[in-house]
């Protein structure tokens, strides 16, 4: 693909902040990707998938962006072995739908299925199953990486290029372009979950409940209220589940692997700023909390349990033209006070967030820039308005003090200095990257902003 054939387009992340223009090329095959890398100009080149990262990691202002969704073939599914070989542009949504009839399940599914395999590797995404399954990179058996020198390297987690493999996992697309991968997948009997919901009236009770028997469930996460102050501050709903077995099903037993994803119409781009405000967020939090009293053993669908937001396309538009940001951090076990302080700070800040997740991470992996480490992770989202900068800076200080870190797939406003302190192995990663891309052909708005 020649640069001239690309189209100049404005790109943003899912948060719709910080738009920038790039030349977007649509490769027909792997050779086109390699050609685009070869003809990269001074502003470099970057792969982009479905654009679900919130900030600027999938933007390359003034440079070339390769639309990887063009490479979207599923090459082979080996059901007995539990592996699947795919192009990087295949979405987890497509992949999950193809795998289910074989009784196969992606062990790591983030909060939306609308991400590509390449993006899932680049961000080393995690899901509600992290405490059992780890993050996405843990399940990559091999990947093909188009590098700055025009070579395509096949990397494995323990092979001769293991360093580059793990620098690519969580490497935000800055080591090269992932062309395809072979993934390990699990076997399941049904497309349903048996869900235990616990309604907890305060943050302390919520955290205590979550710390108790989390390992009995393959999926576990809590929604919590960060608007309400007082004794009910941080109240929430803990939902934990295991895959339903055929014997668990009463209603859907004749077709246990059937998956129907409901689709609402796309949210129109008509919302003014300020729709998500103190009143709507408070009302939402009240309703959301009340709707789910404690109940155990309920059979739920994938959409109900894992991906309620996937029913509406472009839900990010309700935040209006100024967009929103997600703030997700992890602090080690033992730093529970930092979580409490963060919730208190947010609840008293006047900034509001409705879609909040609290989860316990299990062990991390070998990738230097992988986000998950053992501890508590909290994710909140704020519509952008004045004063948010100061709130986020205060939260950064809390996270740094507790020895925690931010998630790059959601990051959109921290400083290079803070990031350096959050990721102690970042220089190791930089060395691996410099060896394979000495001139920094692969670059992004995020890499420029955070001096990655």
């Amino acid at each position, binding site marked *: 693909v020649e640069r001239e054939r690309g189209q100049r387009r404005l790109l943003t992340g899912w948060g719709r*902040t910080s738009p920038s*223009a790039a030349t977007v090329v649509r490769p027909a095959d792997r050779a086109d990707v390699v050609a685009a890398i070869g003809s990269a100009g001074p502003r470099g080149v970057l792969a982009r998938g479905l654009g679900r990262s919130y*900030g600027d990691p999938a933007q390359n202002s*003034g440079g070339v962006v390769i639309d990887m969704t063009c490479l979207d073939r599923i090459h082979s599914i080996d059901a007995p072995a539990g592996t699947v070989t795919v192009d990087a542009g295949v979405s987890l949504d497509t992949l999950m739908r193809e795998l289910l009839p074989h009784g196969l399940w992606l062990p790591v599914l983030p909060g939306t299925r609308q991400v590509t395999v390449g993006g899932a590797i680049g961000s080393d995404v995690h899901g509600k199953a992290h405490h059992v399954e780890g993050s996405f990179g843990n399940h990559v058996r091999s990947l093909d990486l188009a590098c700055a020198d025009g070579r395509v390297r096949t990397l494995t987690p323990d092979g001769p290029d293991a360093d580059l493999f793990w620098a690519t996992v969580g490497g935000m697309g800055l080591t090269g372009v992932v062309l395809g991968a072979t993934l390990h997948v699990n076997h399941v009997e049904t497309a349903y979950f048996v869900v235990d919901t616990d309604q907890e009236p305060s943050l302390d009770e919520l955290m205590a409940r979550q710390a108790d028997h989390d390992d009995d469930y393959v999926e576990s996460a809590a929604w919590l209220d960060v608007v309400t102050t007082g004794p009910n501050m941080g109240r929430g709903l803990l939902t934990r589940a295991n895959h339903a077995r055929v014997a668990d099903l009463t209603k859907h037993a004749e077709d246990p692997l059937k998956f129907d994803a409901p689709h609402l119409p796309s949210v129109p781009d008509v919302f003014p700023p300020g729709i998500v405000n103190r009143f709507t967020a408070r009302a939402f939090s009240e309703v959301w909390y009340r709707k789910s009293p404690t109940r155990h053993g309920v059979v739920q669908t994938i959409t109900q349990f894992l991906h309620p937001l996937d029913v509406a396309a472009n839900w990010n538009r309700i935040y209006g033209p100024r967009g929103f940001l997600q703030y997700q951090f992890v602090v080690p076990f033992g730093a529970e006070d930092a979580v409490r302080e963060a919730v208190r700070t947010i609840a008293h800040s006047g900034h509001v967030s409705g879609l909040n997740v609290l989860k316990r991470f299990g062990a991390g992996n070998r990738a230097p820039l992988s986000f998950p480490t053992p501890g508590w992770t909290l994710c909140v989202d704020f519509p952008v308005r004045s004063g948010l900068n100061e709130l986020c800076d205060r939260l950064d200080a809390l996270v740094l003090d507790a020895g925690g870190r931010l998630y790059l797939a959601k990051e959109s*406003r921290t*400083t290079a200095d803070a990031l350096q302190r959050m990721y102690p192995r970042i220089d190791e990663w930089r060395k691996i990257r410099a060896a394979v891309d000495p001139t920094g052909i692969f670059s992004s708005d995020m890499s420029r902003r955070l001096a990655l």
Partner: protein
Amino acid sequence: VIDAVGNPQSLLLLGGTSEIGLAVAETFARARPLRVILAGRPGERLDAAAGRLRTAGATVSVLPFDARRPETHTEVVEKAFADGDVDVTLVAFGVLGDQEAAWTDLAAAREQVEVNYVGAVTVGVALAQRLRQQGHGALVALSSVAGERARRSNFVYGSTKAGLDAFYTGLTEALRPDGVTVTVIRPGFVHSRMTEGMPAAPLAQTPSQVADVIVRAVRTRQEQAWAPGPMRWVMTVLRHLPRPVFRRLPV
């Protein structure tokens, strides 16, 4: 890159001793580490401006720049972008001078036009090319309410600002597809070096008040703003007044 909450990492100030421009740089430098390029006529005033921003915590470099020499503007802009992306550019130079001389003396009129209009346009052309390549950025031009309706007292200055205003308003549209936000700022009377000794008009502002308007505009990607905000409605009324009424007003 300007981040999600509107913090820039670098700023180019054309008119490196502009009180408004320096106040903008100081505000941004308080929130995040900021690299500033001060472009202006070399001398004590420029050095003092650099010192002031260093005190505020910014990393400052100084670049010789003369608005009267359009043939040098491409080179100046190239140099300003040599050390990396420029997130915010302020076009903040201008002269006011004796407004009676400005419409009676040819040289005085020409000086006003060359600095305020020609210089602003040539620098804008050079900036536009560089910002398009960069694919992002904020470009802020200091216009004036004097350009919205010509007044007997300062119509030469007003005419230069009207020209600047039209150019940068058009540039806003031209650069939109390239991820660049161009903002036209229209302050009323500002207490500054430029207006020293002049009687203050109603709704007069300090440079730091205008700077606050600019900072907010950059953070929210606004394409035009008045300083103070209500001046917009004042000017809307004034623009539509019949001449016999308008000329009787003490403005």
